[in-house]
């Protein structure tokens, strides 16, 4: 299974909005000084890629849904 398929599979098991979830988990929440933490600058960069991914996952999700109507 490709990573992309895995994203779709894991996402389908939840009723979460993918972008909202990523926004919450990556941008918010308490930041405590771990020995390794992600910097805020990194997060902006990460989101550029995630936006693209979310669009393609949502498109793929639509295609799958149309193929297997509930």
């Amino acid at each position, binding site marked *: 299974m490709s*990573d*992309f398929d*895995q*994203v779709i599979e*894991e*996402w389908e098991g*939840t009723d*979460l*909005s*993918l*972008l*909202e*979830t*990523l*926004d*919450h*988990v*990556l*941008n*918010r*929440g*308490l*930041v*405590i*000084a*771990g*020995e*390794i*933490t*992600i910097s805020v600058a*990194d997060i902006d*960069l*990460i*989101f550029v*890629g*995630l*936006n*693209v*991914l*979310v669009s393609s*996952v949502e498109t793929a999700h639509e295609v799958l849904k149309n193929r297997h109507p509930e």
Partner: protein
Amino acid sequence: MSALAFYVYCIAESAATAELPPDSLPAAIEDDSKLEWISVNTLAALVSRVPRESYSEETLAEHLTDATWTAIRAMRHETVVEYVAKRTSVVPLRFGTIYLEREGMQQMLVGRSRELEDIIDHLRGREEWGVNVYCDRAVLLSSITSVSPVLRDLVQRAEQASPGQSYLMLKKIETLKVDEARTAVNRIVEQIEEKLKVQTDDARRLRILKVETTEHGELKAKFAFLVKRSAFEEFRDAAERLAQEHQAAGVRLELTGPWPVYNFVSM
């Protein structure tokens, strides 16, 4: 076996962990790894072990640029925190807090225990709800004349004016419509914030990450509200009333949640 580090999801009260044995919890962010509670006095951190080679400073930064890698792990992080937050008061941590040694994390729990306990106390029985405000521009523009007194007046005068004057006035009306629409949206958003604040314990206006156009129109504002579980019905009713009130102006409200209280845990 390669060296491991501790990935931290959230912090709860030690007393609550007995009801949440690791076996009952969702999957950890890495396969082949289990969640565990690390307790120090009254506080407990929910952690799982991750391979140091994937979560060292440099490799983590590299992995994070791989959107699929990050998305899978961020979803797992959320699933875990959400599961626990539904059952007890927790401090949700942001994705990617890692301790190399168990001692480092234990020291953190001791050093910040006062602040963490205060947060947990303040959040008890409360959840975070998101409110997204969308606006359908076409609907708003077509309804703006009835919403804006200035425009209504101008339209009436244009109807009574001579053809030449009327033409110029209609041009002016078109430009004004766009301005008025912007003002109207801002006013509506403020009103939504004001009215919902009354129903809640705390509110945050959030940054919009990208201009999102959905079937409901364009995302105009995003809020997070801290809501008592016992007050949720009233909060939802208030949101529904606002949605009905502003529907004619092309405004839609979307409620998301309940979320772990990600937006209300700053120290």
